[in-house]
């Protein structure tokens, strides 16, 4: 019986590959876009303009304070009501990018604020413009703080991409739901789905750990 199920599962591997491809595609596009926008938002958030900074802060709080599933439904079902036609893939990308940008914005803000004031004062005193101070002095130092949690956040976001199956995108999780209808062994099917996510995430987990160790070494932390 288990043998039959395995055979049947093996037959579903093209579907599984498609699902894995969709998950990787969604994650890749939204993480790249989310990182770019997240850095932009983080830089603006720490800038001098109170209105912009406040607006970004409010948006980030809103997104962090609501479930991702609800955000996806709002984008996928409400926007068409307002006359914006979206296919499921675009809606998924928008929702994931927005989520990624908001979390990454917070990480970038924390990194920028960790750079000592004296660094900014030294850059100011030598006549560097705001963008030059950011580009030459603040961001390179903030990156050391930002990088480990950033990669960690990527892992969380890749897993959050499973939520897009709710709007009908055939990602890894949805493939699980489809296959389990043919192969009635939920444990086995979703174990394999889990393995699929793990294969994508594990290299990033290792990378995050290495970055953290390098940071610790650079700061001369006492080994516990």
């Amino acid at each position, binding site marked *: 019986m288990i043998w039959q199920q395995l055979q049947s599962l093996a037959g579903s591997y093209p579907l599984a590959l498609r699902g894995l491809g969709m998950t990787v595609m969604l994650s890749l596009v939204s993480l790249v876009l989310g990182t770019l926008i997240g850095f932009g938002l983080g830089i603006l958030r720490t800038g001098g303009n109170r209105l912009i900074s406040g607006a970004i802060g409010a948006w980030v709080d809103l997104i962090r304070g609501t479930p991702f599933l609800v955000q996806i439904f709002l984008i996928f079902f409400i926007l068409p009501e307002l006359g914006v036609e979206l296919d499921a893939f675009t809606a998924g990308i928008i929702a994931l990018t927005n989520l990624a940008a908001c979390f990454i914005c917070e990480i970038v803000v924390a990194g920028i604020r960790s750079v000592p004031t*004296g660094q900014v*004062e*030294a850059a*100011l005193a*030598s006549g*560097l413009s705001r963008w*030059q101070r950011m580009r*030459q002095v603040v961001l*390179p130092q903030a990156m050391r703080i930002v990088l480990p949690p950033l990669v960690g956040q990527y892992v969380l976001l890749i897993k959050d991409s499973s939520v897009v199956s709710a709007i009908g995108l055939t990602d890894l999780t949805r493939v699980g739901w489809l296959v389990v209808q043919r192969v009635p062994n939920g444990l086995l099917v979703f174990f394999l789905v889990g393995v699929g996510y793990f294969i994508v995430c594990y290299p990033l987990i290792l990378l995050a750990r290495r970055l953290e160790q390098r940071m610790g070494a650079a700061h001369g932390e006492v080994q516990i």
Partner: protein
Amino acid sequence: MTLNLSKNGTGMIEFRGVNKWFGALNVLKDITLSVEPREVVVVCGPSGSGKSTLIRCINGLETIRDGDLVVDGQRLGDPATNMTRLRTEIGFVFQSFNLYPHKTALENVTLAPIHVRKIPRAEAEKAGRELLAKVGLADKVNAYPAQLSGGQQQRVAIARCLGMRPKIMLFDEPTSALDPEMISEVLDVMVAVAEEGMTMMVVTHEMGFARKVAQRVVFMDAGAIVESGTPDEFFSHPKTDRSRAFLSKILRH
């Protein structure tokens, strides 16, 4: 008591009735002071007397509430004054060095010349090497700040300022964070800069430095300039009780 600190209003740095508050605290009280081109002025006084705030106002790291502050002919706070441009003419040396930790000594020195003055990289690096050699660090060109001692870092910081060929150099307790054996190497560099005719304001308690190169010592207490005179006058014949009390404390050891 009135102090005639402003001569004829043609100073490189001109404070006229400057006031500043931190909340309810009047940190600068009616400051009037003129520093002539090529003059070296040492500012001293007890902790919290406003000395650092005074020189931080000159390059706009602090803003003033009222009064006039004119630097190199430009009035601070005036919409016509380009503060970023003015800052390129003013070198500022910090107590805690504030070197960029992710850049080498040479990169610290060449960053602003390349990006602000738009000097070609090769030319800026040549000038940077010469400056580092001048402060005695020719062999540390490619060292990162973390690989340098405090005294060496502060000398790089001075070279970083000199790289912009400023008209004015401001020093905010440049030797206070240093181990005693490193103080003189930094002071030697400062003396050399002073002897080349730089306009300088130096917040320091280094009497030797003041006697050697300062034309004037300004003594501050509780946000006000209490006394001002030549180093000889000030150290040998302080005029006020407050300056006598201060000198007795720093000269006791």
